[in-house]
């Protein structure tokens, strides 16, 4: 096909012919076309189907307000549903298909819905499909869902990259039409830092679509001149293909820039960039959107907004029809007839509602062939240009929930109420509907804002232009129609639906929207809402002012979810934190596990080991038998210094800390103010005024935050200072009976004997001949154990040196799984027990709560319900049948009791296979658990198909007296 509808003129580049595929057929267009203009150039009028009735749909507009011409762009994983053909820039090789039809587009089987429309009126689905009850999920809903939606996702990961970014400016101008350009010129000449964004791929706004002159030259030439001046100014950033989609708090705007959508191949560059724009002021110059009127069968392909018809003729050099009729209620619509006549297109009728003439119905099946006038005359037309007036694009003014106000002169809603702070509006968006006035207003706004912000330069004068005539009359719909008249073209809401909504009591505008789905389609009703409101007002016998309007919410136009997600995908969803021994661990068979942001080795697989249990059992056994080494760098470390550091610690830990001697470590329990335990760890005193606190890996950030709160807000005059050193030290646990012997070969000149360096001792020292280190004698495994820390830069070297030195003891590296086995055997609590729901008493640590001081949480830990004698208590559990492997998360029931919530006795928090004992062991909370040693209870886990008897025992499965760790 050879672009049969292409005519002279326009801004397309006829030297650059582009081939594209539409529904499998190859066609051509030019650089500068949109997919819509190229389709029209090729005579394609039927391009889609409506949502509910599957009515034929064509191209209705020339911009982002398009309700009808939605296509699927590209194919394979890059398939992009619901894409407006009117905003897609044509590129060579573009591939697009129509959507929402069963069978070929021209013979959509679902069009049967149109015949059933009397039974599918507003809200019909709320009134049926209820019987029989089971049929909803099985029969009705699958049918409804099968016909739901418009386009299709590819079901494959989006192949493109996205990015985000941050921009700062004095003034953001939204819209590069005559108002926006004038404002940007004035503001930038004055010296402001200006960002000018426009959703189109060429600046100019309506000037690109009209034949107006500006400054004595063609509008487009002035636009080129203005943009050249802006481009030459280093303080201006002009961003086309960029939509400001939302006004957020305090002058922050969201904008989406389409970087590669118009390219055949993005070459791995981000497809779109989501900008967060920080502004001191913003000027909305987003223009206005034309709307239709309601008349019979006003939805056929070939029926178009008049302004769009002019855009196709003037900007793209395409005739939307050969014989065009015009139906208007304003002067702007009449201009269409003039423009088209100038291009030699036949005008078959100009129907002006202000003269009492109307189009009552249209004729045609897959496209309009003729119109029928109110007086019964039939007039041929393959295109009907309709103008029902223009609605200012006030959307962003409403994003802080301010409501626009009705302006009878404009016959539309204009900005009103409270605008987002810092925002002003100029041009058609402000209800200023003629060219010269728009330019003056834009210029004035730019100059005024520059003045407000103290810019000293001269804004210059606004460019000369002539005001065209603008006389709109409020005409909404033709009365006495026999056929349906559409209000919302995409969602198939007709004038009858609006009236029925009112009849059924859905009389608030929000009820109207929700009941009929008016304005809820992908175009957010930009061409439909005002018409719907006018009809609603009429039905209620009220004015439009009294009826009000729904609120516009972000985004102004739909934005790809991928763009909001930015780079945070796949493994880059969140940063990785790596321990200093990570590289060594990779080399030594480690399997890694996510622990918050950290990656930790969970076990080290040896040749011949079949499953993870083999590795973990070996590691845990070897710790108890000889010695093991585990990277524990991930524990939070907070350096605490100051004259009042001890006093401070005493107030943030529930147990006493004031008298901790220098050179000693103490276990500390931290409560929230509500008396619940939320973290634990050890704190070492390195000097009178210097402590090092450790926290759990999970709570490191929270504890630091809470300590800063206590320091700054609760006790601002304590001399205490905090800094995180978590990443600064590579810290290794060295556990097992041979740990002392191993360390003796590592640590320089420190007496490690039990007397000189007993359990809970700490010291600054050096290792391997002079590398500074810190040594702590603490144990999570219950064995004789230490933790040794060196500056992180030595971490990799340290693990290699430790393993080398440990060879003579058959030292093993152990991971988090063995760490867990060892602590469960020993009965130490961890995250599975300290869940933020447990009290010290539940944990068996009630005696640690000091009663002789004030510390966070102590007071409220005394409340009755937290101290009931029949409360949950930590206990150990072993299967009665020793071969059973226990399940964490099982609930306890007394044997013989029914399995229901009223008889719930507690739950199993942690389980492990104990290589030491040769059985599965568990920890858990059981009502009065400490009093029930030796009893048998059911461990009931229906989701794991397990129901076994367990024996209640001490949580200290191994070395209950703590002999080993003190040895």
């Amino acid at each position, binding site marked *: 096909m050879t672009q049969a509808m292409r005519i002279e003129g326009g801004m397309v580049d006829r030297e650059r012919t582009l081939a594209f595929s539409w529904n499998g057929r190859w066609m051509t267009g030019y650089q500068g076309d949109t997919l819509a203009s190229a389709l029209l150039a090729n005579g394609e009028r039927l391009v889609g189907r409506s*949502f509910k009735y599957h009515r034929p749909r064509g191209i209705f507009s020339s911009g982002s307000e398009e309700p009808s011409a939605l296509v699927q762009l590209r194919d394979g994983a*890059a398939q*992009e*549903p619901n894409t407006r053909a009117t905003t897609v820039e044509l590129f060579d090789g573009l591939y697009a298909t129509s959507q929402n039809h069963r069978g070929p587009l021209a013979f959509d089987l679902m069009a049967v819905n149109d015949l059933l429309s009397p039974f599918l009126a507003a809200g019909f*689905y*709320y*009134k049926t*499909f*209820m019987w029989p*009850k089971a049929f*909803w*999920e099985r029969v009705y809903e699958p049918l409804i869902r*099968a016909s*739901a*939606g*418009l*386009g299709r*996702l590819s*079901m*494959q*990961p989006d192949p*493109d990259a996205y990015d985000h970014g941050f921009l700062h400016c004095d003034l953001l101008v939204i819209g590069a039409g005559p108002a926006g350009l004038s404002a940007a010129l004035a503001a930038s000449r004055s010296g402001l830092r200006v960002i000018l964004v426009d959703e189109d791929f060429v600046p100019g706004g309506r000037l690109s679509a009209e034949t107006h002159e500006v400054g004595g030259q063609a509008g487009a030439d002035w636009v080129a001149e203005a943009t050249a001046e802006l481009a030459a100014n280093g303080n201006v950033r002009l961003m086309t293909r960029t939509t400001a989609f939302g006004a*957020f708090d305090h002058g*922050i705007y969201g904008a989406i820039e389409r970087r590669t959508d118009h390219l055949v191949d993005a070459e791995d560059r981000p497809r779109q960039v989501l900008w967060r724009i920080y502004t001191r002021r913003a000027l909305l110059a987003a223009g206005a959107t034309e709307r239709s009127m309601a008349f019979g069968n006003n939805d056929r392909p070939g029926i178009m907004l008049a302004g769009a018809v002019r855009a196709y003729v003037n900007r793209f050099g395409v005739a939307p029809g050969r014989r065009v009729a015009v139906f208007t209620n304003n002067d702007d619509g009449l201009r269409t007839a003039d423009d088209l006549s100038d291009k030699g297109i036949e005008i078959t009728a100009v129907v002006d509602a202000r003269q009492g003439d109307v189009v009552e119905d249209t004729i045609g099946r897959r496209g309009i062939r003729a119109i029928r006038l109110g007086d019964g005359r039939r007039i041929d037309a393959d295109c009907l240009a309709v103008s029902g007036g223009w609605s200012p694009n006030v959307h962003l003014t409403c994003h802080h*929930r301010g409501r626009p106000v009705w302006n009878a002169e404009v016959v539309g809603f204009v900005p009103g109420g409270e605008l987002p702070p810092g925002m002003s509006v100029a041009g058609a968006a402000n209800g200023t509907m003629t060219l010269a006035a728009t330019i003056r207003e834009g210029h004035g706004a730019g100059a005024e804002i520059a003045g407000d912000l103290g810019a000293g330069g001269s804004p210059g004068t606004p460019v000369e232009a002539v005001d065209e005539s603008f006389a709109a009359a409020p005409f909404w719909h033709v009365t006495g129609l026999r056929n349906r008249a559409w209000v919302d073209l995409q969602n198939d809401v007709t004038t009858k639906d609006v009236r*029925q909504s009112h009849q059924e*009591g859905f009389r*608030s505008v929000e009820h109207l929207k*929700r009941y009929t*789905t008016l304005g809820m389609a*992908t175009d957010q009703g930009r061409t439909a809402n005002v018409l719907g409101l006018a009809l609603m007002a009429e039905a209620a016998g009220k004015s439009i002012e009294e009826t009000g309007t729904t609120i516009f*919410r972000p*985004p102004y136009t*739909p*934005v*790809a*979810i*991928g763009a*909001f*997600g*930015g780079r945070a995908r*796949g*493994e880059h*969803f969140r940063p990785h934190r790596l321990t200093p021994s990570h590289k060594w661990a990779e080399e030594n068979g480690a399997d890694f596990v*996510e622990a918050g942001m950290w990656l930790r080795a969970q076990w080290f697989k040896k040749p011949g080991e079949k499953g993870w249990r083999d590795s973990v059992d070996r590691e845990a056994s070897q710790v108890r038998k000889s010695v093991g080494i585990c990277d524990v760098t991930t524990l939070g470390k907070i350096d605490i210094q100051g004259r009042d550091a001890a006093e401070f610690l005493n107030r943030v830990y529930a147990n006493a800390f004031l008298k901790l001697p220098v050179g000693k470590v103490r276990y500390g329990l931290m409560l*929230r103010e*509500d008396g*619940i335990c939320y973290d634990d760890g050890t704190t070492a005193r390195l000097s009178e005024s210097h402590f090092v606190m450790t926290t759990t890996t999970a709570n490191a950030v929270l504890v630091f935050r809470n300590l800063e709160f206590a320091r700054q807000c609760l006790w601002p005059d304590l001399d205490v200072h905090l800094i995180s050193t978590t990443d600064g030290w590579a810290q290794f646990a060295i556990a097992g009976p041979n740990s002392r012997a191993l360390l003796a070969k590592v640590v320089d000149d420190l007496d490690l004997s039990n007397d000189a360096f007993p359990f809970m001792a700490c010291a600054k020292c050096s290792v391997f001949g002079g590398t500074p280190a810190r040594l702590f004698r603490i144990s999570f495994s219950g064995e004789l154990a230490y933790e040794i820390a060196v500056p992180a830069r030595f971490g990799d070297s340290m693990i290699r040196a430790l393993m080398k030195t440990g060879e003579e003891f058959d030292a093993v590296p152990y991971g988090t799984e063995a760490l867990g086995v060892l602590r469960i055997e020993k009965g130490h609590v961890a995250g599975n027990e300290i869940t933020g*729901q447990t009290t010290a008493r539940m944990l068996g640590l009630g005696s640690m709560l000091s009663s002789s001081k004030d510390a966070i949480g102590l007071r*409220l830990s005394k409340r009755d*319900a937290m101290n009931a004698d029949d409360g949950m208590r930590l206990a150990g559990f072993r299967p009665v049948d020793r071969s059973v492997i226990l399940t964490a*998360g099982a*609930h306890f029931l007394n044997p013989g009791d029914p399995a229901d*919530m009223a008889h719930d006795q507690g*739950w*199993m928090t942690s389980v492990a296979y104990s290589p030491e004992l040769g059985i599965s062991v568990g920890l858990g909370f059981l009502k009065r658990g400490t009093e029930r040693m030796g009893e048998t209870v059911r461990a*009931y*886990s*229906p989701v*794991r198909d397990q129901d076994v008897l367990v024996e209640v025992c001490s949580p200290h499965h191994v070395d209950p007296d703590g002999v080993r760790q003190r040895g």
Partner: protein
Amino acid sequence: MRYSALRILKEGLTGNRGWQPAWREPEPKPEYDIVIIGGGGHGLATAYYLAKEFGERNVAVLEKGWLGSGNIGRNTTIIRSNYLLEGNQPFYEFSLKLWEGLEQDFNYNAMVSQRGILNLCHSDPQRDAFVRRGNAMRLSGADAVILGPDEIRKMCPYLDHESARFPITGALWQPRGGTVRHDAVAWGYARGADRRGVDIVQNCEVTGFDIKDGRCLGVETTKGPIKAKKVAMCAAGSSSRVAALAGLRLPIESHVLQAFVSEGLKPVLPGVITFGAGHFYVSQSDKGGLVFGGDIDGYNTYAQRGNLPVVEDVCEGGMAIMPMIGRARLLRMWGGVMDMSMDGSPFIDRTHVEGLYLNAGWCYGGFKATPASGYCYAHLLASGQPHETARFFRLDRFRQGAMIDEKGVGAQPNLH
């Protein structure tokens, strides 16, 4: 007028001219037995059950805007009973059972759609917690299944099973969970209550309480004073404001939760999916839009709108777990104001003012609770006794130390 397929046929053949208003638009009477403040889902459900189950028909619902204008019309429509604690789970299971018979009960198709809810987990401790929760659900008579990675891959091949930063290690699956057409719930309850004589008064804001000697005798409104034997606050999102009119300070903060819907798409998701390593949950409506959300913005607010960082956070979660949605476009974002309570759980209780009752603190779990909340509140109002399943929702539970803290984050509302 009873709704049925036959009625639709008849109306369709006669030009849909015979439909009656779904509810009256009455002016308030000077006195009622019970006045409910708040014409949202919970208030309308309370009125409905008062009339239908407890024979209380001299009831008014006062709504400051249009009925259903609160969170009933701004949520992400999910129903489920997958709670952990004894204080919560039986209540939510009761609610789910009421959902299951609701449409036939009030003769309105609210599209209760039990296509399941899948909570993904990404670590061993998280899976252990899900096992404990699943078992608690089973103990309360609910359905719960633990799935492994292979089963999830089969069920949802489009999730990121390959390169995820936080690999999927399992899931808690509740087949009876699902979604409901939210507005229709308000309309169904309103229509059902109205038919039983309840006055639903729209555009009627409560401006004060008539309290004498510790007893509530009625309310002041923009439509004049109304006397009542019992006054029932039920204004989630504005609970603190309304309660302050009666001199009460509540353990509640108001926060905004944003929600999002994409353009309409052919069906891709069967049920609800929640991401366990970020803030993202999603379902697909019968119209085809992906309905999704994440975390609250975190600051106190009564403005029904949020900010960009949370939008990005939610979509990051979506792209992390479900990278096929990158080219679907976000169509609309909106915000609802939540009563965030100090332990994440609600209140259905008397207050210290005689005759004044409170239903509040639903955090962002209020929608799924709508039927049981209405039923239990009606039970309390009519009988003076708490309903068995709502007996833990006491206003004084923090004094006792009997928190119902599912998340274990304590008295910090923006973390629940």
